């Protein structure tokens, strides 16, 4: 498993109980965890909650990481599963459009922010597997192969999910383009 040497060392140390190594590990990966959680659920507060859950789970799960997949892939899976669990808890997810100005980091023009929010909303409306595949490949830049590791399925299955997801996004493209601007 070719992985950054320092990362491997850090993980091994953390597994052996080295507190500082573990802390460093969390520090290094928090942003990644938050980012993927955000792209999944589209809401900052929920993403923070998911990230928090994942960090805690990490403390116990790290010992079981067996270096079979890339650490990042392993993390992705944990984040997505946690995000799914949160969604399952019967809570209505906050409307992404309520937070559209967050999505472009507050620096984009209102139109850009609006479009970005529409996109995120459309993607978040996709079925879980298609959403995951699209986020991992299109948003995170993973290859189909890497995404397959995360999703624990065949590479061709990932391609299929993306294909299906794209079809649905096509269908939604009209609502994304002009996008009925919400009334305050």
């Amino acid at each position, binding site marked *: 498993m070719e992985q950054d040497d320092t990362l491997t060392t850090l993980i091994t140390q953390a597994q052996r*109980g080295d*507190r500082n190594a*573990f*802390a460093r590990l*969390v520090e290094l990966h*928090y*942003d990644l965890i*938050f*980012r993927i959680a*955000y*792209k999944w659920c589209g809401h*900052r*507060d929920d*993403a*923070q*909650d998911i*990230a*928090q*859950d994942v*960090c*805690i*789970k990490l*403390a*116990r799960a790290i*010992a079981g990481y067996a270096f*079979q*997949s890339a650490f990042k892939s392993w993390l992705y899976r*944990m984040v997505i599963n946690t995000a799914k*669990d949160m969604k399952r808890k*019967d*809570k*209505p997810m*906050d409307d992404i459009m*309520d937070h559209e100005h*967050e*999505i*472009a*980091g507050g*620096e*984009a023009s209102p139109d850009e922010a609006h*479009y*970005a929010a529409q*996109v*995120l909303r459309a*993607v978040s409306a996709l079925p879980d597997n298609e959403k995951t595949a699209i986020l991992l*490949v*299109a*948003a995170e830049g993973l*290859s*189909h192969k890497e995404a397959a590791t995360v999703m*624990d399925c065949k*590479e*061709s299955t990932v*391609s299929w999910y993306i*294909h299906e997801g*794209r*079809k649905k*996004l*096509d269908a939604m*493209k009209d609502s994304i383009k002009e996008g009925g601007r919400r009334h305050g």
Partner: protein
Amino acid sequence: MDNDTDDTLPPRNDRPDAAAAAEDILKSLAHLRTPAPDDNARKIAMNLAMAEFDDVQKDIKKQSLEKNIQKNKSFFQGLPFFSRPKDMSGQQADKPKRREKMNKKWIYGGLATAMVTVFAVATTMDQAPWANKSYVGLGGGLAGMVRQEPSSTQSFKNGLAKMIAPQEAKKEYIQELQSADMAMPAPSSAPVSGGAARTREADSMSLNSTEGLYAPSAKPQMMIAQMPDIHVPQGYKDVGRDKFEDVEENAIKSVTAEPVSTFSVDVDTASYAFIRKQIMNGVLPQKDAVRIEEMVNYFDYDYALPKDKDAPFQPSVTVTPSPWKDGNKLVHIGIKGYDIETKPRSNLVFLLDTSGSMDAADKLPLVKNSMKLLLDTLDEDDTVAIAVYAGSAGTVLEPTKVKDKAKILDAMNSLSAGGGTAGAQGIQLAYELAESNFDKDAVNRIILATDGDFNVGITNREELKDFVERKREKGVFLSVLGFGQGNLNDHMMQTLAQNGNGVAAYIDTLNEARKVLVEEATSALFPIAKDVKIQVEFNPATVAEYRLIGYETRALKREDFNNDKVDAGDIGSGHTVTAIYEVTPKGEETALGETRYDHAQGKDEATKAQAGKSDEYAFLKIRYKLPDEDTSRLIETPITDDRADISDQETEWASAVAGFGQLLKGGKYTGQFTYDDVITLAQKSKGEDQFGYRSEFIQIVRLAKSASEMGGQ
């Protein structure tokens, strides 16, 4: 289906333009920036992770110790009183027995306690930034907490209890924990001392943390598949998750660029009650929670009553110097609604959240007591019904005349919190009850009491808003009362109340319940004007810049003012509403600076005409509708420098509160104004203070000052 492994997405062979659209979408995903996570959220996540890590290490040590012990004492296994409580799912058979773990905690107690108390501080001191970045260094913050008044220690304990308590709404789990005899630490022992208490704290922490989790040696795939439903530790979810709309404070506007300011009135007071509670817990509120207009409007002002009942209110205007910027002025606009003499009948439905999370002392019990207080203000002929949502779902009481008070009280007393938020048809039921007893001459209102769960049967937010709005048009209104902390969805509360032509209030104590539901019952229940909008046009000849203090969430577009279809806030009987603008008169130093080009060039004729009214700072217009009319009426009046409808005492008080609110929001526009300045101004204008609310305010400012000094803000 493609089998190639490159990174590009498989091409579509039909509808090429659609393919392009999807391609665009996917490309934009790559560029999608995510907002930065909150600094606090990051720190808290880190602390909790570290605490969990430490626990794991302890468990590992214990397990190896256990193995040695069990070799010799295997008969301990199987003894019933050592078996774990039954519904801890996912437990492995060889997990350490709870009793033995408790004893072993004495050995590891020290470190565990430090971690437990340290990150409990982290979560309760939500807003106070830490002095240094190391996690162990939180000791300073902890000492600070202990230094404070006993009430803060108690709330710290509450925070700790919440921290350790398992996830919200899982009542079975709560009961099981109680039966497992994990008593929370006694209030009398301070957090940093006391052996027994310390041990018990550490115990509950560890019990919680070994909850339903797999042994470390499991493989990654299996491990993730085994992620149990019960997560670790869930109590924190009830802390620091209050949701507020993200709001930008109103900026300074140039009169030549944007001469007209339009907004909807707001008579809600939720923000003040909420921040009061936070500050009394030793924490400064998050900036988005501070709505200055709600703070200012919390207090009653001595504005002139309307001259005759035909106009339900009349505006009072006064211009005063700005306390925080020499040269600037404050324009106070005050409205007092008349008190109706004969109350119409009330047809009320209490829609109460009875989910498990409502089990805290400041939630369901307070709701019940609040409702009882309200009951006392009603007449015999009024009717009350009770519906609940979540868990014990359904109608608890059909519409019943207040004459049968005993029956209503019985129904009220029978309520209990429990069960998850199953999304029972709560809200639809409530409206059905209201409609079944609908009386067009009465006030038909639903009073929704919740701690943040809006699982009222319609999960889609937009749908819920629309539903409430449609029902409002049919004559059934909705008010929202928020209780408790940590799960409050303030944004949702505000929106629903606005759509339902009702108030949104936050009730943290019985006293507040009394204020909202007794003293202000008539104003909370009986509207005298609806869709009240304010529009101010500033005179560019006399005013260079202006800034509306507060009302960020009530902003309207200029054209919304004359559009009767656009909804706005309502004024109830006896309500007072205050709005304050800070203005920079022409000739004074401006914040925005002079422009290179004279933008008023093209409007020469117009500005000359206006400039003729050189004694006017601005022109005030108010639109409102009488409760059963749909066409708005207009009130207009000029705002001149010499107008002094409002007494100095009242304008000074409003300024003090507004100043405090601005400090809480960061003090961007208040220059050198300090908490002490607020206190001085407030003490000067306290007046009679019949109910003590103003004295309470001064106390709160003092606490906020200490909290800000501690946090190094």
